[in-house]
Each structure stands twice: as C-alpha cells, then as structure tokens.
C-alpha cells in the first residue's frame, strides 16, 4: 500500500518536473517547484513508513519549512529584477487582501 502511494507521488512529481522543464513563464516554474517540494515532503514521510522507521519524519518537517522559505526567497528576489507594474489605485485595493 505504501509502495502504491509512493508510486502515485512519484508520478505526480514527474508531471511537476516536466512542467518545470517546459514552463513558458517563470511563474510556472516557481509553481511547479513549490508543488514538487510539497510532494517531496509527502514522499519522504511515506518512505519513512515504508522502511518502518518513522524517525524520518523530521526530514519531512524540515522540508515543509525550508520549501516555504525558498519560495518566499524566490519571490522576493524576483521582485528586485522585475519590479511589479501597478497603478496606485489597484495597489491600495490589493494591499488589504
């Protein structure tokens, strides 16, 4: 059963990977990296159970955290290189979202 779960996760990781290769815009790539990260968290958790050593969960936790940090980092530095073009009225509306 765990093997089936791992295989399913691998398949969806494969999809994400191919989207990261093809991705026409940079945002597609970021999105697929994000999804890839989440799937890796799950895969590591499932693998830990598969090998009967749930200690592996620590790694999954680290991934869940680090993945978030790296996505934020990517977005942050992306704002430097491509500053967003917004007109001020839209910005005011958006900032309360």
């Amino acid at each position: 059963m765990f093997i089936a779960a791992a295989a399913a996760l691998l398949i969806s990781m494969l999809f994400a990977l191919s989207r990261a290769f093809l991705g026409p815009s940079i945002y597609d790539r970021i999105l697929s990296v994000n999804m890839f990260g989440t799937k890796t968290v799950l895969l590591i958790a499932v693998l830990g159970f598969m090998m009967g050593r749930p200690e592996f969960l620590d790694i999954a936790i680290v991934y869940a955290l680090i993945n978030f940090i790296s996505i934020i980092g990517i977005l942050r530095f992306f704002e430097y290189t491509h500053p967003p073009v917004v007109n001020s009225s839209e910005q005011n509306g958006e900032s309360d979202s």
Partner: protein
Amino acid sequence: MNFMLDAISWFLLASGCFLCITGGLGLFRFPDFFTRMHAASITDSLGSGLIIVGLAFQTPGDWLVVAKLGFILVFIFFTSPTASHALAKAALHAGQKPWQKQT
C-alpha cells in the same frame, strides 16, 4: 478494530494519491498559469492532508510520530496556500493575463 483502522487509512491514502495525480495532471495539461495554479494548489492542500491523516492511522501507537505528522499537516496547511497566494499576486502584477476561451 485494527482492520477498521487499516481500511480507513487505505481509503484516505488512496484518495490522497488520486488527488495528487490529478493535480499533477492538471499542472501539466492546463492552458495557462492561473488554471495550472488552481489545479496544483487545491489538490496540494487536500491531497497532502489526506495522505498525512492516512499515515497517522498507520502508526503503531506512537504518539510522538502522530504529533510530528500533525506538525507537518499544520505547516503544509499554512505554507502552501500562502505561497500560492503570493505567487498568484506576483504573477498578476507582472502582467500575466488569465486565460479566456477563444470564441
């Protein structure tokens, strides 16, 4: 009792996997960025939640493991929608247009 737990976790894992695969397929096949994001982020949250709860039913009575799984669940529920939100906003500001059906 044990069989019941097994059956529940089976069901949860299977549905979680199904969601993950559909999400991956959506990410791969959909026509533009926003629809892809829709596919990826929604299935991401629900699918990972299901898988983690399914795993939690499989733990052999070790509460530390369940607690760790709970941590992962909370983190994913926090971070994944947040990241998606930030990403969507950045993309919209950078001038990505939502896809519309060509008539």
